[in-house]
């Protein structure tokens, strides 16, 4: 109960940030919230199952595109709803087709999925609507995007918390540890994975849809940029994908670091990104929080000794 009250206080305090933050800090806040949502949603499925999904940006981009296509036609809340449904349908199709497969095939398929979606959207735009790129004009300011993302992040954390405490979360961890044991226990593997994969993907789609008004011009190469998927993976890994706040804690420093790098070292950005990625795999295979925990327990054990 205390934790819940504390979380609400933090949430309300964060909601007041746009009141005194300037445009640049607000932009950073939006970026952090956006990646925080993506990384938390990614870890919800990929943390316990250890299935490395690289399709994050496919869903993110689908959300952004849905808004770009429907913003003039439907009222905004309905557009978000449609985006969520689009994300759900694609997640179900992809999930049904691939979740039965072994880990490595899943990685590779999701690796290609973004490219496939981008190709199909580009093909459709060029051949059917005869224009590549769309304009998004919505009366939505940065502070509205910030509040929506904050609400989405709170909802995502709540779902992730609920999943980690519920039967389905436990089932997912068993599947991740040993699929054979899981099937002997009578866990419906495909259905469990599909449910969580879909929840995670719908959240990613919404994150894209909410942020769409930030770009006034949208193009497949902008919203389906594969780097986003990679960033989400390292953020979640850095923080620790098996902790509730792990991915969020990974997203904050890395997002700020990447902003700084792309502003100061635009030409060497990808080299530094790559080296950082390798370093994280080598030094922190289980994430910062786990490393902190083991360090903490080592320290306390030493103190306990006479």
């Amino acid at each position, binding site marked *: 109960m205390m934790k819940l009250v504390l979380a609400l206080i933090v949430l309300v305090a964060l909601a007041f940030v746009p009141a005194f933050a300037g445009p640049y800090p607000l932009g950073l806040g939006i970026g952090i919230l956006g990646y925080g949502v993506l990384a938390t949603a990614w870890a919800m499925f990929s943390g316990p199952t*250890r299935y*490395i999904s690289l399709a994050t940006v496919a869903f993110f981009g689908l959300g952004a595109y849905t808004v770009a296509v429907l913003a003039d036609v439907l009222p905004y809340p309905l557009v978000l709803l449609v985006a969520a449904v689009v994300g759900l349908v694609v997640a179900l199709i992809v999930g049904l*087709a*691939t979740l*039965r*497969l*072994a*880990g*490595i*095939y899943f*990685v*590779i*398929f999701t*690796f*290609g*999925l973004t*490219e*496939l979606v981008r*190709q*199909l959207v*580009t*093909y459709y735009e*060029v*051949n059917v609507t005869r224009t590549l790129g769309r304009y998004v004009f919505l009366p939505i300011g940065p502070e509205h995007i910030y509040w929506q993302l904050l609400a989405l992040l709170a909802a995502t954390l709540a779902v992730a918390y609920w999943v980690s405490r519920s039967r389905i979360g436990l089932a997912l961890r068993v599947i991740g540890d040993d699929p054979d044991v899981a099937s002997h226990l009578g866990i419906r593997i495909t259905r469990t994975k599909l449910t969580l994969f879909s929840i995670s993907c719908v959240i990613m789609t919404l994150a894209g849809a909410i942020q769409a008004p930030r770009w006034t011009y949208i193009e497949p190469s902008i919203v389906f940029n*594969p780097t986003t998927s*990679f960033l989400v*993976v390292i953020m979640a*890994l850095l923080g620790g994908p098996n902790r509730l706040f792990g991915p969020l804690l990974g997203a904050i420093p890395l997002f700020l670091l990447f902003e700084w790098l792309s502003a100061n070292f635009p*030409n*060497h*950005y*990808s*080299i*530094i*990104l*790559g*080296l*950082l*990625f*390798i*370093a*994280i*795999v*080598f030094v922190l*295979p289980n994430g910062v929080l786990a490393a902190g925990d083991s360090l903490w327990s080592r320290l306390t054990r030493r103190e306990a000794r006479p």
Partner: protein
Amino acid sequence: MLFSAILTGLVLGGTYALVAMGLTLQYGVARIMNLAYGDIIIAASFGAFVLFTAFGVNPLLGMLLVIPAGFALSWLIYAVMLQPLARRSRDRGRLEGDSILATFGLLFVIQGVALVIFGAGFQSYSFLAVPVDILGTTIAANRLLAFVLAVVFGLGLWLMLTRTRFGTVIRAVAANPASAPLVGINVDSVARFAFALGGALAAAGGVVVSMYLTFSATMGVIFTMKALIVVIMGGVGNLMGALAAGLILGLVETLVASFIDPGLTLAATYLIFLAVLVVRPQGLFGKTAR
């Protein structure tokens, strides 16, 4: 029209088969899923490009330099970066996950270096761009040469693996890494050699590609994807499967590009990939699940 498309498709497919053989060697023997594989290919293309445009070295001669460089670079990558990961991880799943993530980082490093040196633009050079007549269809001589080279390298690798003692050792590690030490095989060094050999094949593929395609620093990912698709379609570790799957992929891509729409070639590629994964996850020629 149809015949010329099939011919072009076979040439492209031959290149795919060649590069896929290197990847299947790395994944099948060294157990490393190398996502930076395509970037090694592109690096070799740039190598051949520089040798040809700056020093006037014929790409065929350039291969004598670029292929050993690909071998050495991959050997080094394995020794420095991947061997510690392989030693650290007790089970195969862990190594797969770690190697995917580490080679991801490597992908960005190689691509970033190429971007700094060559920029993001497309490059190409003109080598043997003379038309040759085959059964009434004309095709550029460089494409024909690319196909011949792919066949020569593929055949050479196959002979090495099946006819030599060392080839037998490699296949033993691929088949059962746990029992190989029992007969006195040093799995560590065999894996390192196989990984380097895969890198040499990638370099060979890169030189071949540079003879007839335009390429750019950011194209590595596409080659990795295609090589992976071919490997999985053919069945992991199966050279003949890689050959057949490479040719199928090249044919389908060219046919889709010439008769349906060039914008849908990648979509076609992924569609085939997905279809194969769903129907036969072990690949067209693979043995039943691992």
